[in-house]
């Protein structure tokens, strides 16, 4: 192996020094543990959510679910090649959208409720207009966003005209949907980007990757603001804390964690009683409960502050692939390889 030239060697040394400095600075501010600061908080009961609706209609594994901003409708995507928009209050199907590719991995509902998006192993992100139908009576496809060199793993609408995507080619893109053009595209991680969560104020977002890190981004920038280490395997899901000051994560390493933005480090470490990987996570409206969908067919819950396991939601008969909390906090939607979608409240 050729010896590094002086500049490369110098940069590598500087890099190692910087990494050590980051760690030291983080340790300097680590003057308390999570559990210590919430002595005044009451203990939580075991989670009281039960299945309020079981939504049946998909005929293959359901991979992704996302609530609309109205906290009533949600969209699911399944390997049966369909998106279904559900009214979670009645349990009825509002629309069934046939897809060109059955390999859907991720879905998103625009907060306005006007659009849904999906993508997966077709290496594309497709956007449908919920309020307009095409000649066959299905929701009109308004954009097919192509050009990815890897699978589409995650997408989130910034508003009705812009969508943020993460993909298996390790990149993040922002698309202008009105003109169908990529506004921004950049390398984001050292591995597949698998999950995105937008801040409550929509000015920043967090990503998780198979490179085991999470990163914080400003919506208008192409360089990460902060990188978070801690997980020991793929980060499968991230969820911004409603306070905007932290985010939760769920990982293949069989733990969920809480990272604090302003002290730039992991502050919470949540383990389940069993031994299964987590696919997805969410937080309750106040941020007190952390929920995570698991390979063990249940959704685990924890008290985020006292770091205590507060029970599991039982009902699914196979892996829970994705969960979504209603924006107003009244319900949780979960979907599974068992082909069903459940609404818990």
């Amino acid at each position: 192996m050729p010896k590094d030239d002086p500049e490369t060697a110098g940069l590598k040394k500087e890099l190692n020094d910087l990494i050590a400095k980051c760690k030291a600075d983080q340790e300097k501010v680590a003057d308390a543990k999570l559990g210590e600061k919430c002595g005044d908080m009451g203990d939580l009961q075991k989670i009281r959510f039960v299945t309020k609706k079981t939504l049946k209609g998909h005929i293959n594994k359901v991979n992704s679910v996302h609530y609309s901003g109205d906290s009533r409708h949600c969209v699911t995507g399944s390997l049966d090649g369909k998106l279904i928009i559900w009214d979670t209050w009645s349990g009825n199907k509002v629309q069934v959208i046939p897809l060109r590719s059955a390999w859907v991995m991720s879905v998103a509902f625009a907060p306005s409720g006007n659009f849904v998006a999906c993508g997966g192993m077709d290496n594309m992100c497709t956007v449908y207009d919920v309020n307009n139908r095409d000649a066959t009576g299905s929701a009109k496809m308004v954009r097919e966003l192509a050009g990815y060199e890897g699978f589409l793993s995650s997408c989130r609408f910034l508003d009705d005209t812009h969508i943020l995507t993460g993909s298996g080619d390790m990149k993040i893109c922002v698309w202008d949907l009105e003109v169908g053009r990529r506004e921004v595209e950049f390398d984001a991680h050292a591995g597949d980007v698998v999950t995105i969560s937008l801040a409550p104020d929509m000015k920043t977002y967090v990503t998780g990757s198979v490179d085991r890190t999470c990163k914080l981004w400003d919506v208008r920038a192409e360089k990460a603001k902060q990188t978070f280490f801690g997980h020991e395997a793929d980060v499968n899901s991230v969820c911004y804390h409603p306070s905007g000051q932290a985010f939760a994560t769920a990982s293949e390493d069989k733990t969920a964690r809480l990272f604090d933005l302003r002290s730039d480090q992991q502050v919470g470490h949540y383990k389940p009683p069993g031994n299964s990987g987590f696919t997805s996570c969410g937080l309750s409206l106040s941020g007190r409960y952390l929920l995570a969908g698991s390979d063990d067919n249940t959704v685990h819950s924890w008290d985020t502050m006292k770091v205590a396991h507060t029970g599991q939601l039982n009902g699914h008969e196979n892996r829970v692939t994705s969960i979504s909390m209603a924006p107003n906090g009244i319900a949780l939607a979960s979907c599974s390889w068992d082909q069903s979608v459940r609404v818990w409240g």
Partner: protein
Amino acid sequence: MDMMVSTLQQQRAVTEQLRREASIKRIPVSVAVSDIVRFINEHEQEDCLLVGFSSQKVNPFREKSSCTVL
């Protein structure tokens, strides 16, 4: 930390990024967590997972009565 870089350009980019990340201001964990605790306490009453529904009228999953408006 696994930083595999193959070219000088990539090495420069990675090192520059770390320079940026190393220079951010960090606040003490005790302060950060206190603020999160405060947020949770302030929003506790709106969190259905904690307090349930304030009345059955706001529960969209309740069994509807049999009256309908004609």
